[in-house]
């Protein structure tokens, strides 16, 4: 299992701020997790469609599609940041 976090517009679009999911089988990466999430329904498919602007952090460090995942990881998805 990994913990998923969603922030800002992604949280609102997906109607979820936090959930636990099982990792997809094989050598899980952010990419395989995102493909798994896109399969849930049209909304999830749309939010993570190619070309959509989102960012991902694994265990609170900026990550990318190739970042490997292991059980217990905290995986956060969010839009480009706008603080300051």
């Amino acid at each position, binding site marked *: 299992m990994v913990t998923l976090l969603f922030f800002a517009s992604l949280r609102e679009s997906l109607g979820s701020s936090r959930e636990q999911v099982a990792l997809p089988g094989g050598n899980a990466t952010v990419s395989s997790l995102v493909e798994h999430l896109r399969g849930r329904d049209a909304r999830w498919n749309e939010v993570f469609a190619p070309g959509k602007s989102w960012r991902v*952090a694994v265990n*609170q460090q900026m990550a990318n599609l190739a970042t490997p995942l292991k059980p217990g990881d905290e995986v956060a998805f969010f839009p480009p*940041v*706008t*603080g300051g």
Partner: protein
Amino acid sequence: MATVRVQAADFDAGAELEALTRGRADVGAVASFVGLVRDANDGQPIRGMTLEHYPGMTEQALQEICAEAGGRWKILDAVVIHRVGPLVPGERIVLVGVSSAHRGEAFAACEFIMDYLKTRAPFWKREDTPGGPRWVEARSSDDTAAGRWDEDPAGAAKR
């Protein structure tokens, strides 16, 4: 090394800047920046905004940004305070303060921290406009501002 705080409450910029120099006489320069909520953005009146963040990662990202600044310039201390939650126009959002022996380093490091904060620290603004709330979109100008530090790691062209 740096003092980093994420908080709902306002801060006292003067007191925070004084803390950078208290009890020491090796500081010749303190550069600082305060960002505030404006009453208009992109041509829309703004009634207020709400700042969301990623607790834990935010503080860590801000510490890393300050450490990166400390690796690039000889700075003595730094403070970053960023507010979250609801804010109205005129309120302070963020303070960045940097102390060093000489002004060039303090200015460069302070602007660097702000530029990196704008593109790397997990904060998101939702503005309240007459047409309803809207999430602020990231600006490409912020990526450009942050990117110039990569082209010019030592800040040489800038000094």
